[in-house]
């Protein structure tokens, strides 16, 4: 379809800007004045609406159908939340409004902090980080500040990460100025405790762990791991990407973790918007509270809510203002609609995942044969070995059956990985339809692999050439070319 720039005709417009009558604009000095206007689209309002409506029909969301994208927790996003964020008191509140004019917003933030403390089993929360990966980086900055305060900053330079970790973990380690220590996974899918023991010492600052891991497995040795790290004087960071498995069942604080980030856009239903916004609050143990980003949202003795900027040991600010407030509105609303019943949410997520796993494990390889938590990882290596069909082929063929594919080729330690996370959303009928499709695809691989190789057949485009895009990057519209039909 056309780009919006290809629908543009000089002289058309959708906006009318009120013109202040009789008020002259000051002269802009010549060297600061815009010489040539930007080539923004020129379209009437109805063309704008039609263009973006057509684009939306070429996209797939949770509202469209089943979206078992592993590690992304693609659950239903309640529509009431979209109404709540438009309340004028939220939508049109300026972030520099004085505290006495923002009591409702501050109370909402404070209440969200209190809920997150209970869900994580930790002592203090900062809502400021904008997403999970910024939560990670903020957590590592806290750890660095903590050790610097104890005069162990020079000594403790290493952060330990298992080979199953999200790529954000090692990237955050480098951005925080730390060095990476890799640790292996054992035959049951847990961290290799012997490998770990040999790598943790007085130079270790922290562990970063996702539990359950990206394999969808709860680490059975978590208590031993806790003893190793705290025994060496190091801290423990919990990547909360998989918190949807354990809400109300087991808390990171109870597992021994000192810092946790929570992905509000995963576990707590902030819609992901095709790539954001997210929210990545962090919860910490008491010893780390002095270092949290400023300002902190606090309730004063008289019951009023306030921003506390007086935090002399704070690492500083990691983002503007107090964080992505609209995300807080949605996640707070979501958690209030569950309350203690969050446990039912996690139980349903785990039951759904195990059911799909049980139905699929005969047709696809299962590298770690255990019950899973909220997600699991299969391998298409049997289809590749026997029929030449890869995880990509399975994913593209799933599209023809009307499902979003799972995460593929991650975690890196599983070849031809298919990482499936059904979430608690979904009826049994939907889960069965998905399983039927996966089983049909495995049969198709045996009968006629070409139908997988040439998939998808029923999407707005056929399989796209990603290599070509990277080799010769075209990252904006070239205005001189002729319009394309």
């Amino acid at each position, binding site marked *: 379809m056309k780009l919006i720039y290809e629908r543009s005709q000089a002289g058309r417009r959708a*906006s009318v800007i*009120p*013109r202040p009558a009789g008020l002259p604009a*000051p002269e802009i000095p010549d060297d*600061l004045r815009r*010489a040539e*206007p*930007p080539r*923004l689209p020129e379209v009437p309002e109805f063309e704008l609406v039609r263009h*973006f409506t057509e684009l939306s*029909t*070429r996209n797939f*969301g949770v*509202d469209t159908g089943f979206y078992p994208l592993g590690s992304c927790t693609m659950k*239903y*996003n*309640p529509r009431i939340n979209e109404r709540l964020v438009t309340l004028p*008191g*939220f939508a049109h*509140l*300026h972030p520099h*409004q004085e505290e006495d*004019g923002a009591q*409702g917003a501050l109370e909402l933030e404070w209440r969200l902090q209190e809920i997150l403390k209970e869900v994580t089993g930790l002592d203090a929360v900062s809502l400021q980080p*904008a997403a*999970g990966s*910024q939560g990670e980086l903020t957590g*590592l900055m806290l750890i*660095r500040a903590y050790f610097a305060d104890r005069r162990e900053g020079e000594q403790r330079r290493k952060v330990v990460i298992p080979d199953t970790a999200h*790529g954000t973990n090692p990237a955050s380690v480098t951005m925080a*100025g730390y060095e990476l220590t890799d640790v292996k996974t054992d035959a049951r899918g847990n961290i290799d405790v012997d490998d770990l023991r040999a790598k943790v010492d007085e130079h270790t600052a922290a562990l970063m762990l996702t539990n359950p891991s990206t394999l969808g*497995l709860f680490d059975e040795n978590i208590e031993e791991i806790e003893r190793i790290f705290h025994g060496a004087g190091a801290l423990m960071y919990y990547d909360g990407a998989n918190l949807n498995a354990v809400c109300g069942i087991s808390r990171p604080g109870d597992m021994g973790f000192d810092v946790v980030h929570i992905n509000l856009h995963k576990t707590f239903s902030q819609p*992901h*918007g095709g*790539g*954001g916004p*997210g929210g990545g609050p962090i919860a910490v143990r008491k010893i780390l509270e002095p270092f949290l980003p400023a300002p902190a949202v606090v309730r004063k003795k008289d019951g009023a809510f306030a921003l506390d900027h007086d935090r002399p040991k704070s690492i500083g600010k990691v983002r*503007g*203002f107090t964080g*992505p*407030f609209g995300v807080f509105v949605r996640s707070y609303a979501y958690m*209030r609609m569950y309350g203690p019943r969050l446990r039912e949410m996690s*139980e349903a997520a*785990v039951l759904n995942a195990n059911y799909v796993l049980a139905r699929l494990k005969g047709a696809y390889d299962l590298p770690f044969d*255990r*019950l899973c938590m909220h997600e699991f990882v299969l391998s298409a290596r049997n289809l590749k070995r026997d029929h030449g069909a890869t995880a990509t082929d399975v994913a*593209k063929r799933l599209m023809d059956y009307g499902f*979003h594919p799972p995460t593929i080729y991650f975690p890196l330690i599983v070849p031809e990985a298919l990482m499936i996370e059904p979430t*608690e959303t979904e*009826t*049994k009928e939907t889960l069965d339809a998905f399983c039927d499709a996966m089983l049909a695809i495995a049969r198709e691989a045996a009968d006629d692999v070409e139908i997988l190789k040439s998939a998808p057949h029923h*999407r*707005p485009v056929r399989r796209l050439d990603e290599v070509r*895009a*990277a080799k010769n*990057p*075209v*990252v*904006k519209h070239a205005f001189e070319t002729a319009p*394309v039909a």
Partner: protein
Amino acid sequence: MTQHPFLALTEADREEMLRTIGVASVDELFGDLPAGVRLGRELDLEPALSEHELSAHMADLAARNVDVTRELSFLGAGIYDHYVPAVVDTVLQRGEFLTAYTPYQPEMSQGVLQSIFEYQTAICELTGMDVSNASGYDGETVAADACYIAKHATGKAKVVITEATNPQVRQVVKTYAPGFGLEVVEVPHRDGTTDVDALAAASTGAAAVIFQQPNFFGCLEPAPDLAAAANEADALSIAHVDPLSLGVLEAPGRYGCAIALGEGQAAGNLMAYGGPHYGFLAARQEFIRRMPGRIVGETVDTEGARGYVLTLQTREQHIRREKATSNITTNQTLLALGGLVYLTWLGPQGLRELGEACLALGEYAKRRLQERAGLELVFPDRTTFKEFAVRAGRNAREVIRDARALGVHPGYALGRDYEGMDDVLLVAVTEKRTPEEIDRLADVLAEVAR
């Protein structure tokens, strides 16, 4: 217990599923959790609310905020009360956009991918740059991202930032810098703008030089001269710009900047107490492989039809891990889409007219505050865009309190960030303000200031 509205399994479903799995109960599925790490009690949270109970509770919280529909506001300082047209809501509420994940599977995601490609084009057009990413978190963090680019592009260990740059931007850069191995040096302003010679002197040995245009005081910097001073020192010249100024002010790419970035909120996002918004980040072609975050590129499918994919992913954390150009994955795509819809709505003429309206209303406000309220401009010789600093005659926070009692928020107290400015108000005037509203501000300040 009543079935929860966001859950679906019936008792019969559960039994059949457990039978298929081969376990007797849901509890058995959690058998890998050691007893010592189990909560063993109900979460201590208030009981679940129904949708209508929730609505009442949230309406109560919202009503305890004084938003700009309840108080005439001249607050700005980085976040602005511009008009957001209905078409933005219409597009962003499409469930296919709203409830999609990052477009890892391009054949399922052409809507998001093409719109990001169109967004990247719009940002490049606004800034005069060659490449834009798909967005960063906000106008603060994109400045830190740019420092990471500069650190790796130059190998140098210092970043220079002007004191007239938004204080929150400076704070976030200072929080990130130690991890990058960067020292932060600030260059003071002189009479509201940055002294070119002082900046040139500080730039020696710098990886990057960051300045804001218009700056935090609303004053127009001698931006081409600042960029030239940075370039002369082989530092990356980085302009932090207001996207809505770029219909009347020159694009940073046209005066030699390496990188242009900024806060996107003014262009198409509601203020929403500080977020979510989007930060934009655009650079010259030579930095394309150092860019942080998602970038969408054009390609073709197996039948030769045009399509769009996430590209240059070898920069990114899921491939390059500890050697990635950034740790960012989730960005602000939906808000950037809002920006694209808004910029499309404006068009080039609308953008210019909006800039002229802000300029004209700002001049009117300056005149009225001097003539009617008897206030003094702090930087009377400077051209300003959308915002200006004025002496309130006494402590600005007290003036704000007293003016608010009369229903007008007169602006931001600059003493919060700058020494010697305890009596200074930063007044923002967008196209939404009318001459009558500005007169009212002047009347109120005439009463409560001085």
